[in-house]
């Protein structure tokens, strides 16, 4: 740390910091469009392809920063044109066309540089081009970088809409009269600018890291292009600055340090991003699995409790899971109020409701698969098991209606009615009261069941008796028994 503070007293350190943050910013912004247009390889290609431009500029003008810049941009644009031309006019694959052009240009550049340093006796170090020399940034380099940076920023702000739509749906852009080709070449121009500026900080080989890594990180973090651009530019600056500081502290080459910082940030986002991160996805998957497990426990519990066989052993063997694990889940379900906390193993009314709606989903769907799809009875169980957790109430109601409100599933088991609490459940009526069934019931299935039992809304009925299993109603000449569960779902009123 002390070394760092000491280093920061020097002007060259500040020049290096400024230059690399500007490069981080530019590359971060342009990188978003490059990545979204599947042009990552083009970024790499352009950075390699500008070398011959530098060589030619040096031969003509000598060591001249502006000369290097102009030479590089011309070489960059020529390569972009050559690549696009091959892609459109030859039957060479797109990425192969890019590879051919940039390796050729790069080789010419490398040969040119070694020729220059051998014959002219000049100190053009190939290593500086490959990995950058950010610590050697001069004032005039800084001014040029600043000018390029301002130009790139301004261009993206002004042409943002055009960049957005030509990246997202080029065809639509064209039908709106926006020239997709022009925007493409303009982006290539901006890209060559940025690449030339980045040459001194990170070098030819690692420019692509500054272009695609922060942008890819940003794409993991948000769903809107404007936010992607902002986050990516911030991450670009962060990678450049932290990389440079790390390089100074550990006395290593700045370019690779910046690329590594960018990669570390990317990996962090890859694992920890709120929605698209691997951890978040795992957590969601885990929750879904737990929910399905819980729902199976509820479903089997209600089936077993109907025959009074609900015990940990029976439940565990039905579900094919260990008793210890089952006990843990039950404890959690008790906390959630789906099992009675005071009993060892008993569904709460709420748990019963959930369970019977699951059974309903399962059996309705099985019926649907047999009746409407024509599947065999043996094929349907697994299918229904998967879907019972996903079907919404609305879908189920539609399935129910299209099947004509069935009461039995294909295996002959009863389909529970849609669960809900009516305003005044029949079950709450007292012995000796005279009641009527209301015309307004929760579901058509309740109405159908009542109709099958021969109970009509105009009948007056007396509550004869009731217990845990059933409630018995009586009119002048008949006696009807209604199961407790059903009685809870029937809407009834007391009459004088």
């Amino acid at each position, binding site marked *: 740390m002390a070394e760092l503070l000491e280093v920061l007293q020097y002007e060259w350190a500040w020049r290096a910091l400024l230059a690399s943050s500007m490069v981080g910013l530019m590359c971060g912004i342009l990188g978003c469009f490059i990545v*979204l247009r599947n042009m990552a390889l083009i970024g790499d290609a352009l950075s390699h392809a500008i070398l011959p431009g530098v060589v030619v500029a040096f031969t003509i003008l000598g060591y001249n920063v502006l000369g290097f810049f102009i030479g590089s941009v011309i070489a960059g644009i020529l390569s972009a044109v050559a690549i696009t031309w091959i892609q459109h006019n030859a039957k060479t694959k797109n990425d192969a066309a890019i590879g051919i052009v940039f390796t050729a240009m790069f080789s010419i550049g490398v040969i040119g540089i070694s020729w220059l340093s051998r014959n002219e006796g000049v100190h053009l170090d190939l290593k500086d081009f490959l990995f950058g020399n950010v610590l050697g940034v001069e004032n005039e380099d800084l001014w040029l970088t600043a000018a390029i940076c301002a130009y790139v920023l301004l261009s993206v702000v002004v042409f943002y*809409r055009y960049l957005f739509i030509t990246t997202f*749906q080029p*065809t639509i852009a064209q*039908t709106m*009269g926006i020239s997709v080709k022009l925007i493409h070449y303009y982006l290539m121009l901006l890209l060559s600018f940025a690449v030339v500026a980045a040459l001194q900080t990170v070098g030819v080989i690692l420019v692509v890291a500054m272009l695609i890594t922060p942008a890819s990180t940003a*794409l993991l973090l*948000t*769903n809107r*292009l404007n936010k992607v651009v902002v986050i990516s530019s911030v991450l670009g600056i962060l990678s450049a600055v932290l990389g440079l500081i790390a390089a100074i502290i550990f006395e290593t080459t700045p370019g690779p340090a910046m690329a590594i910082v960018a990669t570390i940030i990317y990996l962090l986002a890859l694992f920890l991003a709120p929605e698209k991160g691997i951890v978040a996805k795992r957590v969601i998957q885990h929750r879904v699995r737990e929910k399905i497990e819980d729902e199976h426990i509820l479903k089997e519990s209600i089936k077993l409790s109907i025959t009074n066989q609900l015990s940990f052993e029976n439940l565990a063997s039905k579900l094919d899971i260990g008793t210890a694990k089952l006990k843990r889940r039950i404890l959690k379900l008790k906390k959630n109020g789906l099992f009675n906390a005071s009993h060892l193993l008993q569904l709460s009314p709420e748990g019963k409701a959930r369970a019977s709606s699951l059974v309903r989903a399962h059996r309705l769907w099985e019926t649907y698969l047999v009746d409407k799809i024509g599947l065999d009875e043996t094929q349907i169980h697994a299918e229904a098991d998967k879907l019972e957790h996903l079907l919404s109430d609305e879908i189920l109601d539609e399935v129910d209606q299209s099947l004509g409100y069935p009461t039995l599933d294909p295996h002959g088991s009863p389909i529970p009615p849609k669960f809900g609490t009516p305003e005044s459940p029949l079950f709450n009526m007292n012995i000796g009261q005279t009641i009527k069934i209301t015309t307004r019931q929760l579901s058509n299935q309740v109405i159908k069941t009542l109709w099958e039992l021969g109970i009509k809304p105009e009948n007056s009925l007396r509550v004869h008796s009731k217990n845990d299993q059933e409630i018995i109603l009586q009119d002048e000449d008949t006696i009807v028994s209604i199961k407790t569960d059903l009685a809870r779902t029937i809407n009834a009123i007391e009459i004088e």
Partner: protein
Amino acid sequence: MSNSISVHDLSISYDRKRVLTNIFLNIEPGKVIGVVGPNGAGKSTLFKSILNLIHVQSGKILIEGVPIEENRKSIAYVPQRDEVDWDFPAIVNDIVLMGRYPHKTVWKRLSKHDQDIADHAMQNLGIANLKNRQIGQLSGGQQQRVFIARALCQNPSIFLLDEPFVGVDIPTEERIIQILKQQAEAGKTLLVVHHDLSTVMQYFDQVILLNQRLIAFGDTDKVFTQENIAKAYSGQLSILQKIAMV
């Protein structure tokens, strides 16, 4: 009445294979027009030629009397849904607002007025509540509503829709056809590439039957006959039987 689209002797070939041959069409405004024909009949190619997305090798197309390059603002295109990158970082509102781009010069920002138009279009299609959703998170029907809303924002006089009902739920299909009919009543021209022959009678005022050549063009009840359909779908008996059942 002046023509909104006139196609004069259009022929298109890809790699020496003829796709469209000698097409003449004079399309009047105020109608919903179905473009019907078998696969490979050149329906999408017809659209792309009208939009000048492909080079028109022979023939001439005028939009409201002028070449399309002078009249881009009058035409909105809703392409087939399968050409979209659904992972793209764009929310519904961003995409609908794109419909305002043709009305803005380079230096103009999008205004409150543009947002109002977009909001209105989203309400019209029942997707106002999805405004901030990323497009990949929507159902097929909702995605199609977004693109229709964008086309409405363009406020064009001509709509070209390429198979707008593919992969779309029934309420969405009904809503879209309702909107198309409203637009036609307002004097717009709507061309719709359509596959489901059973709904042609119900949906379209006029129909263009196409199979590389123009088989027939005119009012649906006069032109959409067994004979013409047979000509367009030459040899594809199953489709004829389907129509006979309708």
